[in-house]
């Protein structure tokens, strides 16, 4: 039985896992870099221990230190979240060797699925349809890749073999672009995974990205929790996810789910995992990759199935049986998630840094926020740009979209640029509302409108003028000493009344 869980992560996912621990009566142990000393995951956990300086290599990637801390504080399990060490099979093995419970799938499955070429071969053997592409499970030299490309045909994708998550992917439409694309992909793959191997895959036009959530225990039971639609992407990074998918009907869901479960059984999968598929316009689907961990977008599945995936992960890791059979799983209603990123949609998604000096978080019926943001946080360039996630559920897709729009309008983040305005415009776009989009939609067919409505300019002008006017008056009326922000505020309030 687990009693005390160390969470080897930060931000919203660390908080998500702490919440699950608390609801199961487990103690939660946080670890933190110097940049995160005041972060909510540190303050919400029962215990918290410092890892090191801000860069991830010095902190959240220090597997050795994390295991030491877990042993010293008496934790009996480690949950890796996603990213950082979540798909590091060596770390998972080291955790188990230290006598701790690894809250995730067995290390050998992580290793197998982490090598995207080996994963393709394994899945093909288990009867899962593959996108045509490189078949050999070995490191091909550039010249060999040029030769394979001719059989695969154009357009094609150059993909990193060493890891997934959209890193090290390049689209190649013409043979003459291939050389450069391989160079860039190898560079990015080397940087991201320490593994420069790449492979080729046929690029399927107008395809959607649809994935199946899996959940298995250590007693051989595996179920799927339906699909997620993840086609709203930019730079191969998901931005909006939903469940169910507007492109999947009951028959297709049953078919994809059955194939995913069969393949997972073939490799003795346990814990939570996701099988990602490409879905073409004729409802053919092809294996893309398997994520052997909890995923960012797991909440949309939780919202429609009512199953708490993180709690189930913790339960099955301690040897308990799944509480659900396939027949228990029902999608009810519709859920949408918007990733709130510290990026500027008006400036080519350039990352935005700075201090959050104003924060109002939406709530109310059907709204869930999984977030690492807090009033006063300094958004640093050390970690990825995702600040949090806004998730809503409605009875229908229409209700969910309207609710998301309402919740986005309540979300007020100041001090940095975020993707909130982009999401608002997306929810208002006719093609998104109609469910007619594929993975290229956001980058090719959606125009982010940067010109604010005209009537707002006058409002902005009046507001600024009043502040300037009051500032002039204050300069005359106010004394210089300002004993405390509270007293200052009171004085300003009084002055506001006088100057009204």
């Amino acid at each position, binding site marked *: 039985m687990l009693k005390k869980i160390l969470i080897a992560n930060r931000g919203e996912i660390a908080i998500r896992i702490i919440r699950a621990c608390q609801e199961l009566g487990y103690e939660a142990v946080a670890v933190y870099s110097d940049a995160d000393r005041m972060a909510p995951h540190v303050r919400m956990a029962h215990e918290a221990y410092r890892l090191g300086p801000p860069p991830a290599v010095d902190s959240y990637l220090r597997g050795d230190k994390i295991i030491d801390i877990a042993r010293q504080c008496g934790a009996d399990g480690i949950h890796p979240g996603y990213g950082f060490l979540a798909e590091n099979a060596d770390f998972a093995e080291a955790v188990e060797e230290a006598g701790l419970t690894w809250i995730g799938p067995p290390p050998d499955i992580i290793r197998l699925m982490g090598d995207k070429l080996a994963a393709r071969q394994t899945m093909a053997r288990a009867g899962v349809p593959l996108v045509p592409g490189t078949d050999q499970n070995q490191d091909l030299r550039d010249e060999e890749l040029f030769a394979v490309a001719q059989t695969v045909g154009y357009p094609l994708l150059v993909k990193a073999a060493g890891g997934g998550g959209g890193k090290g992917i390049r689209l190649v439409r013409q043979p003459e672009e291939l050389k450069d694309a391989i160079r860039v992909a190898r*560079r*990015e793959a080397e*940087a*991201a995974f320490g593994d420069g191997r790449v492979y080729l895959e046929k690029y399927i036009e107008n395809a959607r990205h649809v994935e199946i959530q899996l959940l298995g225990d250590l007693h051989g039971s595996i179920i799927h929790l339906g699909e997620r639609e993840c086609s709203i992407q930019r*730079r191969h990074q998901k931005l909006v996810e939903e469940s169910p998918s507007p492109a999947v009907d009951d028959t297709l869901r049953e078919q994809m789910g059955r194939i995913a479960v069969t393949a997972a059984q073939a490799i003795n999968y346990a814990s939570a995992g996701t099988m990602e598929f490409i879905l073409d316009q004729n409802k053919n689907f092809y294996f893309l990759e398997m994520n052997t961990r909890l995923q960012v977008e797991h909440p949309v599945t939780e919202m429609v199935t009512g199953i708490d995936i993180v709690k189930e992960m913790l339960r099955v890791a301690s040897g308990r049986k799944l509480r659900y059979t396939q027949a228990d799983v029902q999608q009810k209603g519709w859920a949408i998630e918007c990733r709130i990123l*510290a990026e500027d949609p008006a400036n080519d998604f*350039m*990352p*935005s*840094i700075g201090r959050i*000096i*104003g924060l109002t978080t939406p709530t109310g019926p059907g709204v869930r926020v999984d977030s690492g943001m807090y009033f006063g946080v300094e958004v*640093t*360039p*050390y*970690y*990825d*740009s995702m600040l949090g996630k806004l998730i809503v559920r409605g009875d229908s897709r229409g209700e969910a979209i309207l609710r998301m729009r309402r919740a986005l*309008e309540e979300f*007020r983040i*100041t001090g940095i640029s975020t993707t*909130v*305005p982009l999401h*608002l415009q997306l929810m208002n776009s006719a093609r998104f509302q109609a469910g007619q989009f594929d993975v290229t939609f956001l980058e090719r067919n959606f125009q982010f409108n940067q010109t*604010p*409505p005209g009537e*707002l*300019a*006058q*409002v*902005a*002008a*009046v*507001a*600024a*003028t*009043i*502040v*300037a*006017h009051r500032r*002039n008056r204050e300069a005359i009326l106010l004394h210089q000493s300002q004993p405390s*922000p509270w007293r*200052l*505020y009171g004085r*300003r*309030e009084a002055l*506001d009344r006088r*100057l*009204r």
Partner: protein
Amino acid sequence: MKYITTINDQEFTIEINQDNQVTVNGQPVEVDMHQMLDTTMHSLIINGQSYDVRMKEGTGAYVVELKGHLFEVTVADERTRRLAGIKSSFSAGGEAIIKAPMPGVVVEVPVSPGQPVEAGDVVVIFESMKMQNELKAPRTGQVHAVRVSPGDRVDQNAILVTIS
């Protein structure tokens, strides 16, 4: 008091009189504005319409955030305006400077001093928030100086490469 308030090239004449009545381009508007406790947020009700307005003083201008949009607003009272001459402005010629858009790590510098570059050529590959960004030459010219090497950790606005 009469103010000339400018957003981009749009001018508003806004008058606030002794009794704090406000007119915009001669039209009276009903305005009620209060500051929130966090001091940058204001609640503005203008002719019955309710807005949350966040305001920050930039260099010589207010940055106003309104319903997710940003406005740069300059406010001048009539006297200031009359006194102010024509703004001096930098000439656009000379060196092109490639700066770090934010703190990060230099991954690669595929150019060296003296090398000719065309507009759009990648001059620095820069990583921040786990993403690699290619910084490109803004115009055709010659690399004048390379101030960084791969692996360097740089601050925001650090000069990376100059093009003459």
